[in-house]
């Protein structure tokens, strides 16, 4: 079973604060994704990457940066957090040639 871990699991910050969400997968998957989940919107793609140093823009990228430092690690950066970014964030990974995405347990972020 593919393994994706996320940290922290819960985070509280203030408006204007700086937040980094971390994701690690040990599956040797080349694709990694960041989603946010909100009631009434489902899962929406923020950014994704197909390898170290690569970054692709998703469907709701405004206010977010991401960086893929290694095959295993993908980070989501909120440099000036706003209350509208209060959400449940998921990381996922998959391998080229297979369609299944494997999700982490999520990070719940509250921006006050």
């Amino acid at each position, binding site marked *: 079973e593919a393994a994706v871990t996320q940290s922290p699991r819960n985070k509280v910050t203030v408006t204007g604060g700086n937040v980094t969400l971390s994701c690690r997968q040990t599956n040797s998957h080349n*694709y990694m*994704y960041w*989603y946010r989940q909100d009631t009434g919107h*489902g*899962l*929406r*793609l923020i950014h994704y990457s197909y390898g170290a140093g690569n970054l692709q823009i998703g469907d709701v990228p405004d206010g977010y940066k991401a960086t893929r430092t290694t095959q295993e690690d993908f980070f989501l950066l909120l440099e000036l957090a706003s209350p509208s970014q209060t959400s449940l964030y998921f990381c996922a990974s998959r391998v080229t040639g297979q*369609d299944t995405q494997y*999700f982490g*347990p999520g990070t719940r972020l509250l921006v006050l």
Partner: protein
Amino acid sequence: QQQVRQSPQSLTVWEGGTTVLTCSYEDSTFNYFPWYQQFPGEGPALLISILSVSDKKEDGRFTTFFNKREKKLSLHIIDSQPGDSATYFCAAMGSSGNKLIFGIGTLLSVKP
């Protein structure tokens, strides 16, 4: 505008009954349609998927149907169990094969 529309947003069924969830889409280039199941406090996990070349796929009590002409798909759960209580997401992916578009999800409650 939502590219993948899912209904209902919530549903309650009795144990032993049949659950039917539906989704529709507009983009005719979509060719892969997975259903993800999410339990509280966890990330989504692939439940079942279907390609546009098929019209039906079964996995135990779960069956997904695909209607290419009407651009609709559905998930049927027979003999629904309380353990099936979860949020279900339909999704779609196009020929680029890089990213999924998710529906808003259906919160299913199966009552004993």
